[in-house]
């Protein structure tokens, strides 16, 4: 079953309502779907298409553009090792080799037990803390090859399951706009005059 479950459908509707056009909610909803199932299935995309009122091909068109959406099962933990300049200068290639050796898979592969997927990633915006990696988008800074070994051992021993949620769960805190406080989506055709508070712009 890979359609969104009832709780997630309710959440999806809350998210859709924030946008002037339902399709804008597509990326957040794809994340929600990936959180529920670990990856994006065809059935899930068909369901999202129903929810936002587009075709499932359009959903796939959007989803397939973005690196983070997986269309096949991946490990419970996805390790992304950065290989862009700052990390490369600080030895990230060695980290990747160490991880490949330790896991017995090449970058892009998943271990036979389905626990860990290894990926070569591009810049993760932690360049001063190079070399860096992410496990399910949680950072590890100034990583040494010994750290890679220890990290993989810890993941295998289940020691990090509190800190790092399974692949698919991104933020553990969600925005909720209280009904009495929210303005609601402002549709592009809704307003044709200036908002009440606005008295024009300053001279150029």
């Amino acid at each position, binding site marked *: 079953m890979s359609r969104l479950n009832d709780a997630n459908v309710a959440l999806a509707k809350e998210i859709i309502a924030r946008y002037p056009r339902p399709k804008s909610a597509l*990326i957040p909803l794809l994340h929600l779907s990936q959180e529920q199932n670990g990856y994006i299935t065809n059935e899930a995309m068909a369901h999202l298409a129903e929810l936002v009122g587009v075709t499932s091909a359009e959903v796939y068109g959007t989803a397939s553009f973005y690196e983070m959406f997986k269309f096949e099962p991946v490990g419970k933990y996805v390790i992304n090792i950065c290989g862009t300049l700052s990390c490369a200068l600080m030895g990230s290639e060695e980290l990747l080799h160490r991880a490949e050796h330790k896991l017995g898979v090449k970058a892009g592969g998943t271990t036979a037990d389905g626990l860990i997927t290894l990926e070569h990633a591009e810049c993760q915006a932690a360049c001063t803390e190079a070399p860096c990696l992410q496990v399910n988008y949680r950072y590890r800074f100034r990583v040494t090859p010994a750290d890679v070994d220890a990290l993989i051992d810890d993941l295998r021993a289940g020691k990090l399951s509190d800190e790092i949620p399974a692949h698919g769960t991104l933020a553990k805190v969600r925005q909720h706009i209280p009904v009495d406080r929210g303005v609601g989506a402002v549709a592009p055709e809704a307003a044709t005059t200036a908002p009440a508070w606005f008295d024009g712009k300053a001279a150029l």
Partner: protein
Amino acid sequence: MVRRKGRAVTGTYAHAAGFYAGDRPRIVTSRFEHADSYSLERYLATGGYQGLRKALARPSMEVHDEVKKATVLGRGGAGFPAGTKWGLTPEGVFPRYLVVNGDESEPGTYKDRLLMERDPHQLIEGCVIASYAAGLSQCFLYIRGEMAHAQERVAAALNEAYAAGYVGKNILGSKFSVDVVLHWGAGAYVVGEETALIESLEGNRGMPRLKPPFFPAAIGLYGKPTIVNNVETLSNLPWILTNGAEAYTAIGTATSPGTRMVAVSGHVKRPGVYEIINGTTTFRDLIYGDEFCQGIRNGNELKAFVPGGGSAPWFTPDQLDIPFEGPQAGAAGSMLGSGAIMVMDQTTDIPAAALTLTRFYAHESCGKCTPCREGGTWLERILRRVVDGKGTDADLQQLIEVGTSICPGDFPHASSARLGLAAVPFPYKMTTICFVGPSAYTPVHSALTLFPEEFEARVTKRTHIPVTAVGVGE
């Protein structure tokens, strides 16, 4: 002067990895010493939402004017003044939207994530002030997908801010209302380009739109006037509204006022993120200064540095005394981009270093423009061949030919006393919609121009047959 209250704050904090406060004025990082700087309680205790209070007590036009007087240069890369950008919306066309660019992913850049994780309320306050001043009816705060922690911090802060009446309906009891909606991406560098960001926010593939003729300020999100501002840019607004534009322009230089976040990474002793005085700090200060990076690791020699993120043409020790200031970096053949310096010492294999950047841009090409889609991949493959020792001198010619098809004419580069080269100023011409294509060529061009011997030593001689000569004019 700035909110330091007489205490010289130096050193680093476990909760803000990579950040060094130093003894300098701080505008956007003023709360970083507090471990709970992200909480509403701490924010309010340190002057938070005072800028918004002051703004709402004045007509929106005056608030816009104040920001314009402060000349807040955009911190995303292009350096366009925010106040001027707000003024480019067409008269009488509503609604207008605000899209916050938190898709930080330019190689070398590390500042917006820190601002979102450490001081999310400051950003939210900036969004609300901008919406008020520019007449924007709804705000979308787009955070890079891979930044799970920043998303959590901003979500929690938004929930607090809504409950306390700083965002949403009738803000602080006024007639001003605006929603700030947290949105997040899913991994695509090109989405940092503002029109691609808008496409992505509409639920589409993140491909840039053709501009000109229409910039987002005229035709943006859902075809309506849209202001796209960077996280750091907006994070400056609370301080400016609290302390006034005059206090802001008293810091920095006339053309580059205030402060600026800069990340220095690579082969330095103390890589870090620093809030520096805008316009006056030189690259030498940043790389060798005691309060900054303290020199090259292991006492090594500096070989080259990238002054403004992976897209920027490289500098060598010849350019160390140039200040971190847009027009001066531009005249010297590069740009400041997103405030990111990457330092390479004498041990660096220059062609291999260039390859990591070219591979990045080739990988991140959205595929819309042929010169970038095809050219980026060509550049990566040819360069890899050269790095692997399988290249020929014809390959070096081919790199330049492919690069010239992306960027016709003279490509900007730094001067070099060693090679007797004069600088070619920034920018370049381009055959693509956005900067991803040229950026794939930038590291190749810089490396080939400034360190030709490292390439020549690696390739074997072969007669070059230019592709343009085959089948042309026959």
